[in-house]
């Protein structure tokens, strides 16, 4: 074969004037020789590839002016004019690395990003779902990451010395006003959203972009799935109740409808509980999600859900020395819409909106407490890529929050209402000096009509890549947030609360192993203080509170060392004190524990098609206040331990069985003590231990998927 080619080439060449030899070498500007680069004469079929030393040589029969093109993956193409006249041409070519944001340095200070696009991710979307012990709760899974403190009696996120209301959750850019389910005091909550809805997650524990305000400690950005790929029907049978979901596709669009019912009564009849449930938690949830592509680049997403939940819990009233029923009924309506489109090459516009209507009806001991929250958020952003290395972003936002609280005793009714409008604008520039260095500079302006206050928040982050595997990042910024509802409802004379973040982070990723260390300092000021006066008077509250948090976070992820196994270890050290709420002085807050450790392990057994998860968590003792003791927050809880396991078994392509147990060894868990409001005859405040609902929690489930092909499954759900 080859001989033929040479023969013909020879024939051809002999019929023409003569040939020119072009030879030389191709090098990378920084890293030496490039073997395998494509070198050819543009518009012809004459060319070759460089050898292992980056050298090349080829002949051409063309004559006159031509262009030599040199191309190599990951490098900018090079063109060079040559004159072909039979004289040998020698070229020494140097290529520059292409600038690609995908493999350029990224800002990692304070940020955990989960998506499946990039290899270098510290955690993937699947990890968010498959962490044992989280049992499908987004917030539960995040509590295995450094920077978080587990508060077993709350279930909410506590980030880097911040209280739980300092964290905000966004879905497709729009604020989620009520991300957690309503629960009774001192019982753990879960997130409202099914983690399978999301394809990507960014969890920022500090130093986030100017796009996000109204959060002193962290933002959780959840991005929903794009278009489903086929019609399907899913049936999930869990020990706490069934769920059905159906997906239907049409030209450029799709709809998914979900209906679920859960009731813990049958489960609680079997497994002994620490609480005395008069009516076990029962809920009905319906959701609909619509996707529509518009034009070439537009994507409209609508998600709407309605939840209806209720329970009645018998709680011991320490003041009355008797059992009292605590009943709660919650109705939550939520709708989230986003539209994203690209205009021309470099301009991206996004519009996001969300609306929440959340109603809690609480009854205890003949008293009624109703809370109605309406929240709305509208955001318009534009991002323009000026050059590959410079991107400008900007946007405007409008938040409204309207809260109405009604307290009814057999004798009286008290109503408190407040409405707040917050307008905000932000702008930021992302500047790459090279593949190795990036900065992001932004500023955010907010105005709040209820407090009649404005704030201006600068944000600055930078990252510097040392080599292919390691990088430094830093983040600095001012963060503002309105005081919580509990204070705003009584006072409009307050100011924004503020936290300044300083974060320095180092990350090294090599061979599917990632090590990350981060140190931070947070300076809190203008925290709301409750003074001595009556709680319903606005003079009782002021912004004289302050505090600090500093700590060290470590994260190690290793997908390599154990075959079919994958683990991560998170450790956080936290040193924090604050003077806020009704604290008499600066003290360690009750939600903070000095040492937090999480070890997450996952293993795939291919022989038995099973995925096993194991998760151990430890939190060092936290403080709580004993009103019988002169020392404020002077008591300590016991340390917190849990060991959770999960097992999923792929029975058939479309049928999966799943089982999980939290706190398998039954570690004793206590979250301090609660005290009576008033002392008894002997002058002592009575108290009771705060414990979780049960020593362990079991769940069994079966997931069945029906499609036309019959082979798809919900493996991504619980793998």
């Amino acid at each position: 074969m080859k001989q033929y080619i040479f023969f013909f080439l020879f024939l051809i060449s002999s019929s023409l004037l003569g040939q020119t030899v072009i030879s030389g070498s191709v090098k990378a500007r920084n890293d030496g020789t490039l073997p395998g680069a494509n070198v050819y004469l543009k518009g012809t079929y004459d060319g070759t590839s460089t050898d292992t030393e980056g050298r090349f040589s080829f002949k051409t029969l063309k004559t006159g002016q031509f262009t030599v093109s040199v191309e190599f993956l990951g490098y900018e193409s090079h063109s060079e004019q040559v004159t072909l006249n039979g004289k040998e041409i020698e070229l020494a070519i140097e290529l520059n690395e292409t600038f690609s944001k995908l493999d350029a340095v990224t800002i990692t200070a304070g940020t955990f990003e989960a998506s499946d696009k990039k290899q270098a991710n510290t955690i993937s979307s699947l990890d968010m779902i498959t962490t044992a012990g989280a049992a499908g709760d987004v917030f539960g899974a995040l509590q295995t990451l450094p920077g978080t403190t587990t508060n077993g009696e709350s279930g909410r996120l506590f980030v880097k010395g911040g209280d739980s209301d300092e964290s905000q959750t966004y879905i497709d850019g729009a604020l989620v006003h009520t991300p957690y389910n309503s629960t009774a005091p001192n019982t753990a909550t879960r997130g409202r959203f099914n983690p399978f809805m999301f394809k990507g997650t960014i969890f920022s524990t500090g130093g986030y972009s100017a796009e996000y305000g109204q959060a002193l400690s962290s933002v959780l950005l959840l991005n929903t799935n794009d278009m489903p790929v086929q019609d399907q029907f899913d049936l999930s049978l869990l020990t706490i109740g069934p769920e059905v979901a159906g997906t239907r596709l049409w030209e450029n669009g799709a709809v998914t409808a979900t209906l679920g019912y859960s009731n813990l009564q049958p489960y609680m009849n079997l497994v002994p509980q620490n609480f005395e449930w008069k009516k076990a938690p029962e809920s009905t949830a319906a959701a609909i999600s619509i996707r529509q592509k518009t034009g070439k680049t537009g994507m409209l997403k609508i998600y709407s859900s309605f939840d209806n939940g209720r329970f009645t819990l018998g709680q011991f009233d320490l003041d009355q020395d008797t059992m009292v029923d605590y009943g709660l009924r919650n109705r939550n309506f939520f709708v989230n819409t986003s539209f994203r489109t690209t205009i021309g090459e470099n301009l991206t516009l996004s519009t996001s909106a969300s609306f929440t209507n959340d109603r809690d009806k609480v009854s205890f001991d003949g008293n009624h407490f109703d809370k109605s929250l309406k929240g709305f958020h509208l955001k318009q952003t534009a991002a323009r890529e000026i050059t590959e290395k410079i991107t400008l972003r900007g946007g405007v936002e409008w938040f409204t929050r309207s809260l109405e609280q009604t307290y009814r005793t057999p004798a009286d009714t008290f109503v408190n209402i407040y409405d707040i409008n917050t307008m905000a604008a932000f702008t930021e520039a992302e500047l790459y000096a090279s593949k190795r260095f990036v900065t992001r500079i932004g500023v955010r302006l907010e105005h709040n009509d209820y407090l009649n206050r404005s704030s201006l928040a600068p944000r600055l982050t930078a990252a510097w890549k040392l080599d292919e595997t390691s990088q430094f990042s830093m983040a600095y910024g001012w963060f503002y947030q309105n005081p919580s509802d509990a204070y705003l409802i009584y006072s409009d004379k307050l100011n924004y609360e503020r936290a300044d973040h300083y974060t320095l982070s180092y990350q090294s990723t090599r061979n599917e192993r990632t090590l990350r260390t981060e140190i931070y300092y947070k300076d809190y000021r203008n925290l709301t203080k409750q003074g001595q006066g009556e709680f319903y008077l606005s003079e009782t509250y002021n912004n004289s509170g302050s505090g600090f948090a500093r700590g060290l976070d470590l994260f190690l992820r290793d997908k390599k060392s154990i075959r079919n196994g994958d683990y991560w270890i998170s450790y956080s050290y936290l040193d924090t004190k604050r003077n806020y709420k009704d604290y008499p002085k600066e003290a360690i807050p009750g939600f903070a524990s000095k040492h937090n450790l999480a070890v997450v392990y996952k293993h795939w057994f291919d022989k038995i098609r099973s995925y096993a998860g194991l998760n151990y968590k430890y939190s060092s003792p936290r403080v709580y206040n004993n009103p019988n003791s002169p020392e404020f927050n002077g008591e300590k809880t016991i340390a917190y331990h849990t060991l959770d396991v999960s097992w999923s078994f792929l029975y058939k392509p479309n049928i999966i069985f799943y089982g999980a147990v939290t706190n398998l060894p039954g570690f004793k868990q206590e979250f301090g003590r609660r005290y009576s409001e008033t002392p008894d005859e002997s002058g002592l405040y009575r108290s009771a231990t705060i414990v979780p609902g049960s020593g362990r929690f079991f769940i069994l489930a079966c997931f069945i998927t029906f499609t036309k092909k019959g082979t798809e499954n919900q493996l991504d759900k619980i793998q």
Partner: protein
Amino acid sequence: MKTTLITLTMLLASFAGMSQKNEYYQAMGETLGQYATCRTVEDFQALGNRFSMIAGNEKDEWLPLYYHAHCYIIMSFMEPSDAAKKDAWLDEAEKSVNKLVAIAPGEADVFALQAMLCTGRLVVNPMERGQQYSMLSGQAIGRALGIDPSNPRARLIKLQNDMGTARFYGKDTGEYCSEAKELLAGWDSFTPKSGLHPAWGKDQAAEIVSGCK
């Protein structure tokens, strides 16, 4: 057969003078001839370079893009462990596959190649990508067989996917043997449109059959 055709094209090329189109046929024939001698990643890289050069000259032809993508997919299969490299090569292949889907949406081989690309993505990280890419691969195969149910490469890739799934579920792959034998026996009855059109796959089919008892 192929060799004769290539020789014929080249003969034609040299006789008719070097018009651009003939140069194209010649370059394609010559480059396709080198497939047989490719052994290493570097060999396929060099071959892919040739196809990339040809594709640059012939914007309306789908075959150079097809082979360009094919080379890069093979490279990713040859790389033992570096996931970032595998993905970078598959990114390069995907660019060509996307162009192919746009310029030659009626070719079963284009979608068969797309299915192969999806399988390539899957093997980079089966645990995380299994679900998504097995579905996408299955879809692409469905499209290929929808266009031409007799396309042997589409049938081969489907067979490989089905056998992979059966193996995963611990089932006997013996039930696919008759299908494999039938595919191999009928392989040559499928005539490519020209000597430049995709013709690979018979060896893999033979390998499956040889694994049957």
